[in-house]
Structure formats: C-alpha cells, structure tokens
C-alpha cells in the first residue's frame, strides 16, 4: 500500500508535511535533510525539484530554486542521490515540481524511476487536471504514484468536487489568493474558506499550505483540516542554519508541540 494512504489511515489530525528544495542549501543535503525531518517527528516529506521559472512561488522558494540550480541540482542528480534512501527514511515522500523538467526527462521514465526509488506521490502545480486525465493518469496509476491537486479560495465547489474525485492521496488547499511565502497569522476570511471546504465532506484528506510558519498557524490550519504543509518558513530555517540536524529538529518540534 502506498505510504500516503497508510499514513492517513492511521492519522487524520495534525499531519505535518515539510517541503524543501532539493540541492539547497548545499547540493548534497538532500537525504540528510529527509532523515532529520523524519527524526524530528513530521509526517510527510515533500521534495521540491528546482526550476528556473517557478511561477507559483514567492521570493524565498524562488531563491532556494536558483541556489539549488547553481549548486548543480537536476532531476538526474536528485534521482542519483535518492538511490537507496528507503533504507534510511520511512515517511511518505512526495516530489513537487514544475512540469517542464519532468517532461524533458520523460514522463514515463520519471514515473518508473519514482516507483523504483520508493516515492509515493507527486504534486505538479502547473499540470492542469484535464491534461492529467488525458495524458498522465494511467501512467501515475501504473507506477503507484498518488497525485495531488491544488485548490484555492477561488476554486468553485463544482471544481473542488471534480478534483476530489480525481485525487488520490490528499488535496492541497492553498490558504489564500497567493503564491508561496510565510505570512503572519490566518484571517477570518481564510477560516471561512477552510470551514466551507471542510463542510463539503470530501473523500480525500486535506492539507493546508502556503503561509503556514509556526505552531500557531499550524494548529489553527489543522483545526479545519487534516494537517498542514510548511515550505517557505522551513527554507528560511535551512538558509540560516549552522547545524542542519539540530536546527531542523528544534524548528519542527516547535511547530508540533
């Protein structure tokens, strides 16, 4: 069984997913960061595949993408680093990346490689649903990869239902009209949107992301969903860290406490 499904079978509350960009801050940090995230008590690891033109990302993740690329990160390099990681890491692992680098690698080869390595799911923010259904759904299923779609406050109820129908794993709720980036606090308007979606009783679990940065925002978001995703705030921790292992542990524990 796919590790994402197993996770949500056993845990429906306060699921914490941590995003980081592969190859940042240093090229060879990938697997050590994953081990530290697991040791610190998070539930899902999202590895960002760096891209030169990340249009859904704010300055923090743009920078981490750029630095990762300067460090020499690529999909090929990432896959080489992930060779054998399942001996060290048990958490569900999701790759998050823009479509172009994956298409250049070859979608089928990519899916096959993900399965071989033990990757559980994909988040491809610029892959629209209809394109997924037409071109890639069968491949994802063939290689046992769960696919996560995003929704935002603008997404209509009808479309949320469609997305729910075609998702498998979890739904990524973008917390506001926004690109990624840590903001402070969660507004009443956002809470109303969280509640509206919660009350739709979707079949897939929901994780809330974009703007989640600390214990307060994590627990507030989690009270309307199955948990939350932290990206930019975690990247900032990595950027300033002198000792990745201890800083990652301290930060994640401060969030889930």
């Amino acid at each position, binding site marked *: 069984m796919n590790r994402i499904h197993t996770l949500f079978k056993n845990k429906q509350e306060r699921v914490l997913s941590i995003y980081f960009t592969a190859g940042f801050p240093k090229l060879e940090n990938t697997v050590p960061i994953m081990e530290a995230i697991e040791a610190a008590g998070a539930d899902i690891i999202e590895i960002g595949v760096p*891209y*030169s*033109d*990340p*249009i*859904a*990302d*704010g*300055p923090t993740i*743009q920078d981490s993408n*750029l630095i990762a*690329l300067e460090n020499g990160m*690529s*999909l*090929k390099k990432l896959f080489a680093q992930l060779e054998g990681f399942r001996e060290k890491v048990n958490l569900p692992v999701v790759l998050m990346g*823009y*479509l*172009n*680098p*994956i*298409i*250049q*690698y070859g979608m089928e080869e990519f899916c096959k490689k993900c399965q071989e390595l033990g990757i559980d799911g994909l988040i491809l*923010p*610029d*892959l*629209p*649903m*209809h*394109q997924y259904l037409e071109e890639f759904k069968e491949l994802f299923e063939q290689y046992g990869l769960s696919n996560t*779609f*995003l*929704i*935002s406050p*603008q*997404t*209509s109820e009808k*479309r949320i239902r469609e*997305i729910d129908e075609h998702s498998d794993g979890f739904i990524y709720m*973008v917390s506001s*009209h*926004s*690109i990624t980036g840590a903001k402070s606090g969660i507004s009443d308007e956002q809470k109303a949107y969280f509640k509206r979606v919660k009350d739709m009783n979707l079949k897939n679990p929901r994780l809330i992301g974009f703007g989640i940065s600390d214990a307060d925002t994590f627990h507030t978001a989690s009270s309307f969903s199955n948990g939350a995703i932290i990206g930019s705030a975690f990247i900032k921790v990595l950027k300033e860290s002198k000792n990745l292992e201890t800083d990652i542990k301290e930060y994640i524990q401060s969030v889930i406490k």
Partner: protein
Amino acid sequence: MIRVDEKGFYGKFGGAYIPEMLHPNIEELKENYEQIISTEEFKTEFNSLLRDFVGRPTPLYLASRLSDKYGAKIYLKREDLCHTGAHKVNNTVGQIILAKKLGKKRIIAETGAGQHGVATATVCALMGMDCTVYMGELDIQRQRPNVERMKILGAKVVPATSGSKTLKDATNEAMRQWINNPVDTHYIIGSVVGPHPYPEMVAKFQSVISEEIKTQLKEKEGRENPDLVIACVGGGSNAAGAFYHYYNVPEVRLIAAEAAGLGISSGKSAATTVLGTMGILHGSKTLLMQTEDGQVVEPHSISAGLDYPGIGPVHAHLYDIGRGEFVAVEDEDAMKAGVELSRLEGIIPAIETSHAIHALNMIEYKRDDIIVINLSGRGDKDLDTYIKWGGY
C-alpha cells in the same frame, strides 16, 4: 487549416499549463472573451479607438528606394506610425475594453523593451484604470526613457529582481501578482504567448494589420495577396497580426525573422526555432530554449523586444509544419539594416523591426514579387542602443 482548437492548441503547441490558482481567471477569460469581442458594442468602441486614438489604418507604403536596391516591390506596413510607436497598442486597446467589460479595476502587465508597458500605461490612462507594470531590473536600466514614459502616464513600474531580471522574469512576476490578485485584476499579456486563450486573443487584436494590408494592397495592386510577408518574432504578436489573414492562403509565403544575437552558436542568441525544443513556459507548450534538464536558458538579443527564450505556440506550429520560413538575424546585421532603411527611406526603425528588414538578404524571391514587411515599430526608443553601437 491553421487555427486554434477548443483546447487551445495549434497542432502540438499551446494549451493552458497553469497553476490551479489561475484556473478561475483563465476560465473567466476563455468563457467570455469571444462573446464580448463579437458584440457590436465592443467592435464599435475598438474600431473607433483604433481610428481616432491609435491613428489607424496605418499606411501601406511603397518603399521605392528599398525596392530598387533589393529588386522586388517592397511595401512597408507602417505600424511605427501607431500612437506610442509600435503595434503593441492594437492589443492593449482591445484588452483594456475587454477588462472593463469583465468588471476589472486594475491592470497588470509585463514588459521587456518597455513598448508594451508604455502601450498598457497609455490605455490605462485613457480609461482611468490603475496600472502596474513589471519589468526586469536589467531592462529598467537599459530602457530608461520608456520607464519614465510609463511613470508620466501614471503607471507604477515594479522591478522584477528574480532570475535573469529581464522579460522572462517580468512575465513570471506578473503571473505571480495575478495569482495574488485574482478577482479585481486583469493581466494584459503583451504578445501571443501565455496560456490559452491569450495567444489567440492577442493575435485577433493584432489581426487588424493583415486585414488592412489586404484592403490596401487591393487598392494599390489590384490583388489582396502579396507574395511574401516578413515580420520579426519575439513572442510573435506583430508577426501573428501580419500573417493572420494569410495563414490559410498557401501562395503567400510567411517569413519570420528571429534574433540570432551574437550568432546561433555563440551561446548568446534568441533564435528559438533553431535552438529550442518542445517545452512549457508561461503556461503554454511551445518551442523553448532550455537545457537538457529542462531549465530555461537565458536568451540574448540586442533588441530587448526579441530577448525572449520562447515563441508563441502558433509560430512553433507554423515552423513545425513548414508553413512559416524562419531566418535568424544577428545583432550586427540588424543594426546595419536599421541604418540602411533610415538612409533609403527616411525611417529609423525599432531594432526589433530591423531584423525583419535584414531578412531580405537571407531569403530567395523573384524580381516581380510583392513583399510586405511589417514595420512593427519606430526607433526612437532605441537611440541609446544605436549610439552605443555607433556604426553609422
């Protein structure tokens, strides 16, 4: 038949590869734009602004001395005489009326050379709409006069500081800001690029160019169809406009001039059809300059308006099926062609446009052929570049 299909594809190219956050905006546009622009009300407003504000129809001018030199009958379609100095304003006039009808309050746009930014700031001033233009930090330095023009017109110019700090990054930034302001804001894209329905919508607004060429050529030559149409291609909006009504007229050759920069194999080029491969950028599948790993490569051209790593999906398709003939013109040759046109015809062209002029040296044609070159813009904005180059 060259036309966009329901899903927004021209053959293999096009589509709408956008984050879900933009889905409602793109849907809103897709569902409404064709209906809105086909109303009499829209057409009346659009056509009267094109006539009285932009100064259309622009002349189709027989360039006799240029014709003598090249041994063909060469007409220039004078888009340089449009208000604000280039074809870009045809599109911004169309989109601002559309934005108003969609109930939008704010406009955002990207710009490279600043021509599209100025054309957008201009129509926003005309309509009293709030306007923010994203422009690469590097381009802000290179194109100072256009930055000041936008400011005089009341627009806010925001530097794009990510990546290479040029047009591609300004486009990324405009898309991000659209994600951040999805409800009250319309994004006026400046070329036939971006997610469907933008490429076709922008082409439709620019298609007035070939519509006029047909009528004007009929008057002057007794025939609607020239033998060749030549235009430069950055994203490809002036070319799409000049080709539009000839796409499906096979006897009209369509010549697209790309920027070769310092040379195709110099590593400093923007010749997308030569150097590009199929990829996805700014929401559409097209030909794209990229590394083997799928990272977008920084282009180079002496003309900021052609300094873009992709081309509109319709041009990728024209190239793919062999309907368009593509030539790649180097910086130096374009500059010389600009001077040549200045001295033969008394017209200083934009450097983008000069690429189309030089194409005359790179293609075969017959002595009695009628050639229309789309003179997309005037050279005022490029004086600094002419001066720095100095070869006149």
